[in-house]
C-alpha cells in the first residue's frame, strides 16, 4: 500500500514535466496545426538558460559577489527570467523558421520538416558550442523531506506538482475566459475567417509560442533542479514522449495534454515497478500505440470530418 502511494507521488512529479512540455505541443498544434518537433529542445534550452542564470547569480562570472543572494531569492529571480528568455528563443524560432514558410503558403509538411531540423540544430549546436561534458545544476533550495510512514516526499516534488497544477489552471483561464484565448480557439476552427474578423493572426501566434515556450522553460528549470545533470540530448527523448502523450490525450485540447502527460508517467512508473526497468520505453510506447489504435484522435480529441 505504501509502495503504491510512493509510486503515485513519483508518477505525479514525473508527469508534471511531461504535462508542461505536452501543453506547449498542444497549444501550437491547436493554433497552427503544426507539430513543433523543436519543442523538446526548447525545453533543453530552457534548462541550460536556467543553469547559466543560476551560476551567474551565484557569482561564478565575477559580476555578483558570491553568497550575496540567498537560494530562495535566486530562485525567485530565475523563474521569471528563464521563462522570458526561453519564450524569446521560441519566438525567434517561429519568426525565423516558420513564419516565412507560412507567409508563402507552403504545405504543412515542409513546416514540420523544418521544425524537425530546427530541433536537431538546437541539440547539435548545443553539443558543438558547449562541448560534450555535462553540466551540474547548483543546489538552490534546502531539501526538506517529509515522511508519512514509509512514504517520503521532498519539498521539491511538491513544488513541481503544484507548479504544473497552477500552470494548468492559469492556461484554462487564459484559453477559456480571455479574448486572446478565444482568438486562439477560433483560429483552430477556421484559419481563413479569422483575419476577416479583425484579429491579427501573427500576434496571436506569437502569443501562443510565448506561452508554450515559457512553460517549457519553466519545466526545464524544474527538471534541472530535480535531476541536476544537464546534457545536450536531454530534451530529445522527453520531447518525443511528451508529444506522444499530448496526442494520446487529444492534441489541440489543454486538458488532453495534461491528462496525457500524467497518464504516460503513470504507465512508465507502473511498468518500472512491476517489470525490469529496461522494458520501460518499450511498454510505454506500446501502451500508447494501443490507446491510439483504439481511439485514433486521442482521449479528449474530437474527430474532424473533412468535406469532400
Amino acid at each position, binding site marked *: 500500500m505504501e509502495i503504491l502511494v510512493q509510486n503515485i507521488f513519483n508518477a505525479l512529479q514525473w508527469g508534471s514535466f511531461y504535462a508542461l512540455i505536452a501543453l506547449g505541443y498542444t497549444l501550437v498544434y491547436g493554433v497552427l496545426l503544426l507539430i513543433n518537433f523543436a519543442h523538446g529542445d526548447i525545453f533543453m534550452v530552457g534548462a541550460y538558460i536556467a543553469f547559466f542564470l543560476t551560476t551567474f547569480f551565484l557569482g561564478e562570472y565575477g559580476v555578483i559577489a558570491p553568497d550575496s543572494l540567498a537560494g530562495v531569492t535566486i530562485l525567485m529571480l530565475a523563474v521569471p527570467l528563464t521563462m522570458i528568455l526561453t519564450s524569446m528563443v521560441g519566438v525567434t524560432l517561429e519568426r525565423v523558421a516558420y513564419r516565412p514558410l507560412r507567409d508563402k503558403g507552403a*504545405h504543412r509538411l515542409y513546416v*514540420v520538416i523544418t521544425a*524537425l531540423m530546427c530541433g536537431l*540544430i538546437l541539440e547539435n549546436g548545443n553539443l558543438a558550442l558547449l562541448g560534450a561534458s555535462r553540466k551540474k545544476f547548483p543546489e538552490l533550495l534546502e531539501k526538506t523531506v517529509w515522511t508519512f510512514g514509509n512514504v517520503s516526499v521532498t519539498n521539491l516534488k511538491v513544488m513541481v506538482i503544484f507548479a504544473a497544477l497552477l500552470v494548468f489552471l492559469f492556461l484554462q483561464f487564459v484559453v477559456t475566459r480571455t479574448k486572446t484565448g478565444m482568438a486562439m480557439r477560433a483560429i483552430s476552427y477556421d484559419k481563413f475567417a479569422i483575419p476577416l474578423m479583425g484579429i491579427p493572426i501573427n500576434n496571436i501566434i506569437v502569443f501562443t509560442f510565448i506561452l508554450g515556450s515559457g512553460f517549457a522553460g519553466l519545466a526545464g528549470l524544474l527538471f534541472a533542479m530535480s535531476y541536476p545533470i544537464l546534457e545536450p540530448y536531454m530534451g530529445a527523448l522527453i520531447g518525443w514522449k511528451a508529444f506522444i502523450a499530448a*496526442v494520446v490525450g487529444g492534441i489541440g485540447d489543454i486538458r488532453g495534454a495534461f491528462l496525457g502527460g500524467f497518464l504516460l508517467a503513470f504507465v512508465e512508473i507502473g511498468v518500472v515497478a512491476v517489470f525490469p526497468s529496461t522494458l520501460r520505453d518499450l511498454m510505454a510506447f506500446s501502451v500508447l*500505440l494501443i490507446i491510439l489504435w483504439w481511439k*485514433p484522435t486521442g482521449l479528449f480529441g474530437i474527430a474532424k470530418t473533412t468535406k*469532400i
Partner: protein
Amino acid sequence: MQKHSFKLLLFVFSLGLILAAHFQFIDQYVITVIMLMGINIILSSSLNVVNGYMGEFSCGHAGFMCVGAYVSSVLSVILFTKDRIFGAPLLAPDLSLFLFPGVILIGGLVAALAGLLVALPSFKTRGDYLAIITIAANYIIISGIENLDIIGGPRGFQGMKRVINAMEDRLDIPWMLLWVVLGTIFSVWVIRRFVASTYGKGIIAICQDEVAAEIMSVNTNKMKVAAFMLSSGLAGIAGGLFAHVYGYVNPQSFNILKSTECLVMVYLGGMASLPGSVLSAVIFTLLIEALRFVIPELNALAHHLRVIPESYEIGQVWKWVIIPLILILTMQFRPEGLMGARELGDFFPFLKRFYRNRTTE
C-alpha cells in the same frame, strides 16, 4: 541496341568498379564510401515510395533497417560461422557464397512483416498521427532488441566478418561491394517496376485524393499494405547489407537520427522522384565525407583569420548542424527538392530516347 544501352552502361560501370576494387586501383576507404552510397540509395528510394509517391509522413524508417540488419546478421552467423553463443555453423561456410543473397532476402521479408505494424494503423490515421505511430514503432523496435540479451542487447552483435572471410576464402574478389551493387540495382529496379505498375498508379491516386481513389475502384487498403511492405522490406535489405559491410551492428545506430538522415535524403531529392532520391543519396553521402575534410580546413582558416577564440576548435559535430541547415534552406527556397516530381528526362532531353520504347509511361 538503343533499348539496352542503359543496362549495358550499368553493367560496364559495375564491372569496372569491381575490377578496380579487386586490383586495388581504389583504396578501402573509397570502396566503403561507395558501399555506403549504395545502401543510402536503397534507403532513400524505399522511403520515397511511402513518403513521396504515397504522400504519407513515415518517420521511422530506421526501425525496419534495424529489423533487417539483425535478422540477416543472426541468420548468417548461425548458418555459416562458429560462434560463442550459437555454436558450430549449421551449414558449410563454403555455401555462404550462394546462400548469402537468400539470407539478406529473408532479413528483408521479416522487415516487410514488421512494416505491417505501421501499415495497419495507417488505415485509420493520416498525416501527423501516422508520424507518431512510425516514431513509436522505431523506438519499440530498438527497445525490443536492446532487451534481447541473447543477441547482445545494447552491446551489439558481431561476427559477420567471418562470413565475408569465408566467401573470400572460396574466391578472392571484393564480395561485399558486389553484393551491395547487386542489391542497389535490384532495389531500384523493383521500385521502378512497382511505380510503373497498377500498384504505383494506385498509390499516386491515394496521395492525390484518397476518397476519390476509393470511389474509382482503387483498393486503398491493399495498395497501402503493398507499399508499406515493399518500403520496409527494401529497408531491411539495406540494413542487412549495412550490417555485413561493417561486421558489427548495434541497436542505437538505427535510432531517430538515422531516420532523420533518410528523411533528409528523400526531401532533398524531391518527393515522388526516383532519380531524385538516387541523386540525393549520392550527394548526401559525398557531403558527409567531404565535410570530414572540409571542417578541419575551415577550422584552420577561422583560427588564421582570428574569427573565433583560440581555445575553441570547430569539431566534426558541426556536420550535424550543417546538414539540418541544408534541409531547412531547401525547404525555404526549393521545397520540391532537387528534382521535384520529375524524372531525368525533363532535365536532359537527350535522355528521353531511353523512355521512348517503354510500354507503360
